[in-house]
């Protein structure tokens, strides 16, 4: 019977890890989500506002008097992105809730992490998938709307004064997608059921917003909005697009800080929960 060498042997990886290792995870996640017909319908429904706003821009460019009721300027895009937040929530619940929860339930996470992938790659892959979906309902229609607006009213939207608009659209869409994506993934990692994770994320998102409403009623200060993810995203959008809002009027630097804290919290949860092995007490 052969007796094998029992001493410690240093492992030397034969090949360096690939660049963009997270991409296959993103691709697979997107494939799975987009394969559902109901999800595609949701993605299509998310463009309804785009159609409505296009009509608004068209009407105002043809009949300038209508602009007094439905003003068309830089604020239009901020309001548009605020309106898309509801779809970002639905997309994150539908598409994001199961991204980690399903892997935890089926043990697929072990399969992922037994490949030449790090936990960071895994999280990046999932986040990229969810961000892509969110960008599809925020950045894509908002940029398209800007192109439509520039085409219909070049004298207004192609002016130097409004050249910051595409940049603001990209920035705000990225912030929305990143914040929603991180929070949805963090909640997804806390459950093995996509349904429970989806409901928990929606509960958290809506719960924090109603808590903001109650706190505002109690303290009557704009800073109460800092506890709400939705409130902070609105506040940042309002600052970027120059919108004066009655309720989401917390100072934007504080809103940005609150979003950074929330993101850090989500990353901490993900770091603790995304593991190949779960110990049962």
């Amino acid at each position: 019977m052969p007796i094998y060498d029992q001493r410690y042997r240093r492992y030397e990886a034969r090949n360096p890890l690939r660049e963009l290792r997270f991409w296959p995870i993103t691709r697979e996640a997107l494939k799975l989500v987009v394969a559902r017909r109901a999800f595609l319908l949701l993605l299509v429904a998310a463009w309804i506002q785009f159609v409505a706003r296009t009509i608004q821009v068209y009407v105002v460019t043809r009949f300038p008097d209508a602009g007094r009721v439905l003003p068309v300027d830089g604020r239009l895009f901020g309001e548009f992105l605020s309106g898309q937040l509801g779809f970002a929530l639905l997309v994150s619940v539908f598409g994001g809730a199961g991204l980690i929860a399903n892997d935890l339930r089926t043990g697929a996470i072990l399969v992922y992490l037994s490949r030449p992938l790090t936990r960071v790659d895994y999280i990046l892959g999932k986040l990229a998938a969810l961000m892509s979906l969110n960008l599809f309902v925020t950045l894509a229609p908002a940029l398209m709307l800007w192109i439509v607006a520039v085409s219909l009213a070049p004298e207004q939207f192609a002016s130097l004064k409004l050249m910051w608009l595409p940049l603001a659209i990209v920035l705000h869409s990225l912030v929305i997608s990143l914040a929603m994506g991180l929070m949805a993934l963090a909640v997804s990692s806390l459950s093995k059921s996509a349904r429970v994770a989806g409901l928990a994320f929606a509960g958290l998102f809506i719960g924090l917003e109603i808590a903001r409403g109650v706190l505002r009623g109690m303290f009557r200060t704009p800073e109460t909005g800092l506890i709400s993810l939705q409130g902070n995203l609105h506040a940042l959008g309002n600052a970027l697009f120059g919108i004066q809002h009655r309720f989401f009027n917390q100072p934007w630097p504080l809103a940005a800080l609150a979003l950074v804290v929330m993101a850090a919290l989500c990353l901490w949860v993900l770091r603790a929960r995304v593991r190949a092995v779960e110990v049962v007490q």
Partner: protein
Amino acid sequence: MSADEKALPPPVPFLRAARAVFDLSLEEMVWSRKSLVMAGLLLMPVALAVLFRLVANLKHAPAGIDLYGLVVAMYYLRNALPLAALFFATALIADEVEGRTITYLLSRPVSRASILCGKFAAYVVTTLTLTLPGIVVCFFLLVTLRGFSGVAAFVPDLLRDLAVAALALCAYGALFTLLGVLLKRPTIPGLVFLVGWESLANLPGWLPRYTVTAWVRSLISHRPVDEGLAELFQTTLPAGEAVVVLVAITILGLAGAYGIFSRRQFVLDQ
């Protein structure tokens, strides 16, 4: 009828079976991570009220009963309770199907009605346990902002709020139980119902009558300032009618859920 069939004893009595299912479901619900999330949501106003008492300048604060009314009407009845119902009630059967434990329940000599009722009772007890103490604590923390004098006058309001909260949990719970057995993925339709359909309550005409929230808010006396269309159109419906409608929603929701649950082959969903 064969000799074998004649010899079969009757199913386990309804109440006994429902009680056994209730005990298990309660154990599962109370100690689940899901309940922790919901406890956070349903007890958040207590934390906010404590914070308010600690931090706020009480001299310039609004009247305690108004703040309490805001918490009950805006937080609990309009948002948190429907969300809690969506969270728990859609999962009553879906959790068993998803976890594949439904097979154990359906291979015992018990009627499906007893399984559904046992689970619904566990939902009601769990959500009431998480909600009612929160409302009571908020009442005392907020109404006594400027001392205990006059508090007794508002106690009937508190009792009414507790009863309305219970009724709302039953009505929403029955609706979402129905949704949970009807659909394989009830989350998105449930959310769309809550944030979309229920907004009809803030529109004029007969539209509020088609929502649950309009009937629920008609039963309480608090009318806090709203942030949206409700400010313009908030409709109050007759209280007696509201009780009848909410009870009817509960009964019809559960009956519909039973109708589907009793016929459905859950193995196919696995």
